[in-house]
């Protein structure tokens, strides 16, 4: 059974059907459809971070670097006025992002704990400054995408990316696939090693595993998926800019991941929904919503350690 926790199964069976039907409920309101799409895209990003932090025990504050890279790689390799194939470019972008992750991971994973937190943040800042200072990439304004990719396979057109509802379904599909993929990975033999490294790295090394290599692979995997999320985001609004790489993006993703329940993977969806929901409602009430968010985060750390999923699991999982 892939989703082997009861809570997780309930969540999957409630969330995905609801999400499937949501555009019908919101019929005339593409604003909300687009908002939900953005939330789902970010949930993919948060899930990839949750895997790194919650499953592998690698705390990184620089994951947003790959989010931004997803968009910037696209503008680097895609011709400006021509519609490319979405699926092929997905592959390219994930592959390039993975290559970058290999290099960065090689440097960053030699450290641990506090150092890793600081170094990942610093590298993300480096990427941020690189893109915001560079003229080739439009500096702070970023770059516009003039033509969105075409999603046909063998001539059969699947989604029209200009259509918000189509795009919504593409992202929903991606979200489900991401969750599914990560569950496969965590359940696999590779996942067994990752779990071992997370729980007791000393013992795992003593058994003969090269834990650096496994961490590097996990890092690369998660980063490629983070880039995919960034690529989707870029396609949604038609532009990429340096704020995607800002440390606040990494920081809030981390908050969402913990809010939802660190390490649960499906919790990333919960956390993103709740956080963005709060953000959205608070923003309308006051321009200083950040104050309440900050206070909420502090309270969450003090009181609500296992996040929403943790709380639900406590209620629903019985041995």
């Amino acid at each position, binding site marked *: 059974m892939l989703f082997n926790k009861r809570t997780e199964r309930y969540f999957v069976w409630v969330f995905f059907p609801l999400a499937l039907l949501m555009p019908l409920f919101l019929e005339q309101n593409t604003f909300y459809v687009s908002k939900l799409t953005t939330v789902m895209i970010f949930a993919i990003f948060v899930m990839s971070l949750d895997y790194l932090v919650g499953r592998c025990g690698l705390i990184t504050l620089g994951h947003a670097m790959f989010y931004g890279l997803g968009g910037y790689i696209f503008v680097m390799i895609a011709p400006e006025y021509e519609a490319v194939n979405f699926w092929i470019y997905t592959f390219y972008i994930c592959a390039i992002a993975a290559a970058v992750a290999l290099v960065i991971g090689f440097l960053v994973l030699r450290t641990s704990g506090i150092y890793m937190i600081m170094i990942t943040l610093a590298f993300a800042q480096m990427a941020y400054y690189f893109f915001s200072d560079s003229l080739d990439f439009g500096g702070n304004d970023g770059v516009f995408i003039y033509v969105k990719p075409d999603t046909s396979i063998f001539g059969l057109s699947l989604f029209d990316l200009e259509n918000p509802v189509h795009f919504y379904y593409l992202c929903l599909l991606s979200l489900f696939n991401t969750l599914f993929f990560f569950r496969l990975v965590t359940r696999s033999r590779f996942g067994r090693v990752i779990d071992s490294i997370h729980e007791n790295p000393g013992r795992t090394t003593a*058994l003969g*595993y090269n834990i650096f290599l496994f961490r590097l692979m996990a890092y690369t995997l998660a980063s490629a998926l983070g880039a995919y999320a960034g690529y989707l985001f870029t396609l949604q609004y038609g532009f990429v800019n340096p704020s995607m790489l800002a440390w606040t993006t990494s920081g809030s993703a981390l908050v969402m991941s913990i809010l939802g329940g660190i390490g649960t993977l499906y919790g990333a969806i919960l956390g993103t929904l709740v956080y963005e929901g709060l953000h959205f409602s608070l923003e309308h009430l006051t321009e200083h919503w950040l104050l309440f968010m900050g206070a909420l985060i502090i309270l969450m750390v003090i009181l609500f350690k296992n996040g929403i999923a943790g709380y639900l699991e406590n209620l629903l999982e019985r041995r």
Partner: protein
Amino acid sequence: MNNNPILETEGLCKHWDGLKALDDISLKFHDRELHGIVGPNGAGKSTLLNLLCGHYKPTSGRIIHKGEPIDAIKPYAYARRGIGRSFQKTNIYPSATCLENCCVAVQRRMGGSFDFLRSRNRQQVLEEIAGDALDKVGLSARRDEVAAHISYGEQRQLEIAMVLATSPCVLLLDEPMAGMGHEESQLIIELLKKLKREYCIVLVEHDMDAVFELSDKLTVMVDGRHLTTGSVDQVRDDPRVREAYLGQGDEVY
């Protein structure tokens, strides 16, 4: 019994900023033999084990395994060569079942660790081998128990099972009976009697009765230096050994 040592050290030294934890240790360990290492506190026994399994790097001297020097290889490579180690402080995966603990160990040998799509629960051979390791130490009844919930003595047994599951050729056991009562110790002693017929075992222990009962060869270390090596009787009768222990206030008999 093979006359060539399967594992040996030559002039092994370990210094920590001026403190000599180990000084010029040259020992030979043979296959199918249990080689006990004893000594008062601070003798360097744990340091020796840490060096033999690659956890520490020697300051000077060599470690030779099956004829090849291995002191420069990476820590995880030691285990890959078949040098398995159990720890003094129980070092298992508390949140996993006993079987899963052993599965992690078996998987190292069996491979497939880079398969990230297929479920880990579908590898029957792997689970069989893990189950066998649990059988060997007598923990079959606890297969599906979460490791954190079994008794302390059982956890020590699990430690040994995990090492066995990696199909080692050398077992480095660091005080496997630490903190155990008499009955539990007896179980481990019986287990080790069985195992020493198959593996090269290096046993560091404070429980003197156990060491005398089990060791084919016995080495005494004091203050990081080698005092004497010989059969149990030879060592017991050695006046220097008595002095080393009584001088420290420890009891030998």
